[in-house]
């Protein structure tokens, strides 16, 4: 497993941990932005290897978790239509909307299909010219380029029966929202590696680092990557620096992937987006631009915006902003489990609540 097992090497892990202990003299609170990193941390118990002064708080980087309830309801209504084949990544199936989830829609006869890539959804449209194929485009900058490309491919092939339900969100505005919140405790960030693979880190991150006085270290997902990111971040904090650094240079170029960025610019506009549990963040998402608006499923099926209330017990918003840990939620592991989730962070493979539950962190410990 080239470019993978080297970064899981126990000896490197051990030495990095030792080094972090040596350089840490004061308490620091770091946020790992991406839910994939959260899973690595909880799965390998990386947070337990760190000095007690270093706290890792989990960030909002779980696209499934931040998809608003209204968008899920819209998905469920579109998926229930008889002419529609609703294509989605598997993660979205069990995310509860206000009334049901996609499994429920499927059980009642909706044609919901799990696809592995947006290209598969375009293929469905090609194979079923008499049906409407809708792809649920959820995700961060990592996922968006392939979805943008799918729209272009469908457009070029004249597939008028393909559309996208777009709920894309962007990382830098979320970092800004975390830093601007009155209760913010985060002093440094491990930025989401694969988001930066696409977007690079020279455009938006230096401004954020300077403005909020926070080091931002572009970090990968394997244990050695995460610990190396922590080390670089702590070294910056200890020496009073707040720079943008790249731990993940094997996958991330400073300017990102130019083809992907050009495709995004061609197909999407940057718009304000509501984040579930957090609220509207200005300029924090993508929507189809005017030229491709005909491929917008919300428009094609004229789904009206219907605001709905969140289940009162779920504190997902606070968990996603790093203010609370999953175990501090009174429903964690009791009324909210992966089998019967109250909120999205318990469903998604990137949700902090699901990670704590999967790796059996007890509520008391999970909350500490």
């Amino acid at each position, binding site marked *: 497993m080239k470019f993978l097992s080297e970064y899981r090497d126990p000896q490197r892990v051990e030495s990095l941990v030792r080094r972090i202990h040596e350089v840490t003299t004061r308490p620091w609170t770091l946020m790992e932005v991406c839910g994939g990193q959260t899973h690595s941390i909880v799965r390998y118990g990386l947070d337990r290897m760190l000095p007690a002064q270093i706290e890792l708080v989990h960030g909002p980087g779980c696209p499934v978790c931040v998809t608003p309830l209204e968008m899920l309801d819209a998905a469920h209504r579109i998926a229930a239509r008889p002419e529609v084949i609703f294509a989605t990544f598997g993660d979205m199936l069990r995310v509860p909307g206000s009334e049901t989830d996609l499994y429920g829609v499927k059980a009642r006869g909706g044609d919901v299909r799990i696809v592995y890539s947006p290209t598969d959804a375009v293929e469905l449209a090609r194979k079923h010219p008499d049906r409407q194929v809708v792809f649920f485009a959820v995700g961060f900058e990592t*996922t968006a380029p392939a979805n943008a490309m799918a729209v272009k491919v469908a457009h070029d092939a004249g597939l008028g029966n393909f559309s996208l339900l777009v709920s894309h969100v962007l990382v830098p505005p979320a970092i800004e929202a975390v830093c601007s919140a009155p209760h913010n405790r985060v002093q440094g960030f491990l930025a989401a590696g*694969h988001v930066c*693979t696409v977007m690079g880190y020279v455009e938006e991150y230096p401004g954020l680092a300077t403005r909020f006085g926070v080091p931002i270290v572009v970090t990968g997902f394997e244990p050695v990557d995460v610990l190396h990111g922590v080390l670089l971040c702590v070294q910056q904090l200890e020496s009073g620096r707040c720079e943008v650094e790249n731990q993940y240079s094997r996958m991330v170029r400073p300017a990102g992937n130019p083809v992907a960025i050009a495709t995004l610019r061609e197909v999407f506009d940057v718009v304000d987006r509501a984040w579930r549990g957090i609220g509207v963040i200005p300029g924090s998402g993508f929507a189809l631009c005017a030229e491709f608006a005909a491929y917008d499923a919300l428009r094609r099926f004229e789904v009206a915006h219907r605001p709905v209330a969140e289940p009162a017990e779920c504190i997902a918003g606070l968990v996603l902003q790093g203010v609370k840990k999953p175990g501090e939620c009174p429903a964690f592991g009791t009324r909210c489990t992966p089998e019967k989730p109250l909120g999205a962070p318990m469903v998604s493979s990137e949700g902090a609540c699901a990670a704590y539950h999967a790796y059996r962190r007890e509520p008391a410990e999970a909350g500490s």
Partner: protein
Amino acid sequence: MCLALPMKLVERREFDGTAELNGVRRNVSLLLVPEAVLGDHVLVHAGSAITVVDAEEARKTLELIDSALRSEP
């Protein structure tokens, strides 16, 4: 959802190719990495290669980590 894995490109066609990890082969779109050539490792996310792994940078990072660890007091 941002999960992505480095896979070796074992076949290259005009717009897509076959990539392999641990003996598992997958069809991947190469539309976002026109520069990818046979034998490269590509980072695959949801069926699309999103970058070509920079082997030289990978080596440098590991060297940096290993040398920093050797020079510790």
